[in-house]
């Protein structure tokens, strides 16, 4: 199943997004000796841009090409084949959205110059799948790139909403490229988010957050750990707010392309990314419409049965952590479906350097009075009921499944987001058998929903 999706991902057509270019050479020479050329074309910030130069360049050898921004030379991947100039940015050195670049061409006897404006895409072709990487944009509030997968016919979907799946590499590495590659795979294939994106025809956002090996114990970004939330400086500061900035940027990008989305998003994740979703929901419920994840560990309360719950178990110190108070009203509006496998042994209530403190472990044991994962899971459900959130959250156990994403999720998640797109919170009749897989049933589900309208 997973393999098939990955394979599909590989044959994905990525749009090249080239406007029809028009070129004019007005033969004026400026006082620095450059012959000015006018080009009515945009420079793609991430993808390759192909520029067809006037015919006379087929006979002139171009020895050198340079790109300049604000008086500084920029490095890029440049190719010249006769009069075809192709330019792509080097990885992580993308052109900046909205900036105007000067490109110079040096031939044996002449030199030419033209200006070109860089853009983050405003002419998407919705008739095909698009995979887009948006570079980090500190000015807009995100210091890491993100991937946006836009399934074809997104504009025809009933569901005008973004789905977000935080990246979860599964191991540490100081090389952001590796996290980036995994995020890309998440965006185009492997997991639940891309599955929902394809079936419901909604865009998917996957951030590229790091999970460094250096000081890994303080840097577990993929779970949105306490140490990560407390970072006071550097690129990794407040990645929760960075994700919100990415969401807004993606919504704006799609709006520019004529696709207006709801403000609130769907979110999904499993294990580390499930925890990320879980914590993000408590911190920013006003951003979230519905969540479906396997990572429930955080309670929307300051105290529980006499235990003070600090982040990441509860909201007792949310002011210190997030600089805002807990928004109970908005939290209650979030439809939540959380699951585990009956054979999953990963939820250990013990202190770990990267996540739980000794205090957290003690509190968890006070709450659960057990180390048995199934007993803990049932207790979690009871506690959420006791707190009065039973109506908005559904707990589910998939049978025959360890610490992995059950196949049945690929069916149930579609069902869940379909019925929780509107104002009411609806629980679903979820599959018990974790290995259940029936794409025909999923198709029927969607057909039925569309016939209603």
């Amino acid at each position, binding site marked *: 199943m997973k*393999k098939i999706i990955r*394979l599909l991902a*590989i044959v994905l057509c990525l749009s090249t997004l080239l406007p029809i270019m028009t070129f004019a050479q007005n033969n004026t020479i400026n006082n*620095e*000796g450059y012959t000015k050329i006018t080009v009515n074309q945009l420079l793609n910030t991430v993808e390759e841009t192909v520029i067809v130069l006037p015919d006379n360049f087929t006979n002139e*050898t171009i*020895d*050198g*090409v*340079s790109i*300049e921004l604000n*008086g500084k*030379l920029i*490095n890029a*991947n*440049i*190719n*010249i084949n006769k009069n075809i100039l192709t330019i792509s940015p*080097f*990885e992580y*050195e993308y052109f900046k959205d909205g900036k105007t670049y000067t490109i*110079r061409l*040096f031939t*044996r*006897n002449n*030199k030419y110059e033209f200006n070109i404006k860089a853009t983050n895409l405003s002419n998407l072709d919705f008739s095909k799948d698009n995979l887009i990487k948006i570079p980090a944009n500190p000015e807009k509030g995100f210091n890491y790139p993100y991937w946006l997968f836009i399934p074809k016919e997104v504009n025809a979907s009933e569901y005008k909403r973004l789905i977000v799946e935080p990246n979860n590499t599964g191991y540490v*590495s100081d*090389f952001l*490229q*590796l996290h980036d*590659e*995994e995020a890309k*795979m998440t965006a185009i294939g492997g997991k639940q988010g891309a599955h929902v994106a394809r079936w419901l025809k909604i865009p998917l956002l996957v951030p590229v957050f790091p999970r460094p*090996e*250096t*000081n*890994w*114990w303080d840097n577990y970004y993929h779970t949105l750990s306490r140490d990560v939330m407390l970072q006071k400086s550097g690129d990794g500061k407040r990645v929760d707010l960075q994700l919100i900035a990415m969401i807004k940027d993606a919504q704006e990008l799609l709006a520019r392309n004529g696709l207006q989305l709801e403000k609130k998003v769907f979110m999904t994740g499993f294990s580390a990314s499930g925890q990320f979703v879980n914590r993000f929901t408590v911190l920013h419920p006003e951003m979230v419409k519905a969540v479906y994840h396997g990572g429930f560990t955080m309670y929307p309360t300051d105290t529980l049965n006499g235990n003070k719950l600090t982040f990441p178990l509860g909201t007792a110190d949310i002011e210190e952590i997030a600089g805002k108070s807990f928004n109970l009203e908005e939290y209650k509006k979030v439809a939540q479906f959380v699951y585990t496998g009956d054979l999953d042994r990963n939820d250990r209530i013990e202190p770990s*350097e990267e996540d739980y403190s000794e205090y957290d472990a003690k509190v968890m044991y006070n709450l659960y009075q057990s180390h048995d994962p199934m007993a803990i899971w049932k207790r979690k459900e009871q506690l959420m009921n006791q707190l009065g959130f039973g109506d908005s959250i559904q707990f589910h156990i998939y049978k025959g499944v*360890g610490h992995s994403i059950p196949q049945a999720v690929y069916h149930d998640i579609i069902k869940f987001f379909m019925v929780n797109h509107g104002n009411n919170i609806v629980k679903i009749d979820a599959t018990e058998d974790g290995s259940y897989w029936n794409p025909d049933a999923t198709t029927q589900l969607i057909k039925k929903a569309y016939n209603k309208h």
Partner: protein
Amino acid sequence: MRKLQRICVFIVTLSIVLGCVAFANGNTTLSQTMNENNYYEITTNDVLNTYGETVIKLPINFKDVKIDGVSIDRDGKFALVKTSIDKDEITVNTVEDLVHDATYNIRIYTKDGKRYVMPIKAKDNLNVNPKKNNLVRISAKPSKGFNFPYYLYIPSGAFTNKDTMHLLVEGNNGYASDSFIIHDTSAKDIITNKNGLKYYADSLNVPSLVPIFPRFADHMNTPYLRFLDRKSLLTDDEQIKRVDLQLTAMIKDAQNILSNLGIEVESKVSLVGLSTSAKFAQRYALLQPHMVKTMVVGYTASITSFPFSEYKGTKLRYPIGTADYKEITGTEFDVEEYKKIAQFHYMGDRDTNDATQFRDCYEEEDAQTIWRLFGEDQLNGRFENTEKALKEMGFGDRIQFHMYKDLRHEKTPNTIDDILKFLKANNGEEFNRIKPHEYGRSGH
């Protein structure tokens, strides 16, 4: 303590990276007249590193001159490099490897209308410091038999090591991607892994080598070079053909480089591998037994590449056995050389990652053979059956098997400790079994 260790490692890694930067200090001179293409020529004895950063002193100081363009080309194509000029220094960083021994033109255009060209040769950077740990990257050399680059790590201890040394070799692992930088990064990750290859190299004071073989994005339909699968042996594509022979060529190249640095290693190597790189090691040992002294492999899916052609009446074709060895490789299997290899195979009793289930790793036919002859469950019988088969067929004398308790598909201090123990114990001619930890995880 652990934190302190990590910080130390970080500093070491940094110094390795910095070690790659070389300051060229040859002679550069500027001609006073323009050539026929309107360039002032700069001649230099300096070289560009094929990989990484090079800083070159220029005979002109650009402090007060605005530079309008810099580019580097060879045969009319721009090189994939990043450049910057600061006063009289140009810094070049490669994005894609330059070609060793090829000549490039660095061109500089200034606002005042002057243009300069400096022809310069590219060379692998072999500057090493015996007082430091060194990471060297050798670019592809088709003329020497390898079409991909490789990493060579030389710990400072290797320069003074008087023991018998066997180069440590591990295959590379990582994502399927068409972006080579990803494969480069994963290979670098492996050779600098302080819970793996770097730890063994530093502890034994022995150099290590990791090839950078790609795994293509379309991995279901392309040869799996890092698995040395049938497709990778049968392909006609010159570039990716026979990566076993390519690795042997890399090893010989590295041995030559080390010898020039005064480090003499034996012709045979120690192979280590985990999971994918374990499969690579097992198959490489079968294909090139004369190159292998020791092999330590973990998470093998409880199976190996058997050094015989038939078992229980079933023919074992490559990569399960040697039935079609000659047909595929063009040479006879050298069973005597294979028998000399000291081997340690281990598994974790909670390792659920079974490569026989993945069709890009094992073809259906081969997976069926394994399941039928050695067992369907890698944690229940297959490991024992594999060991039994090797013994029955006369290969038990120099192979040790071990199943760890409470161990998944992971590296732990215990497994790392045992691997080092085995490598140390088997550095000489004699085969020595070790007493491995019973449990994969400590704390029992």
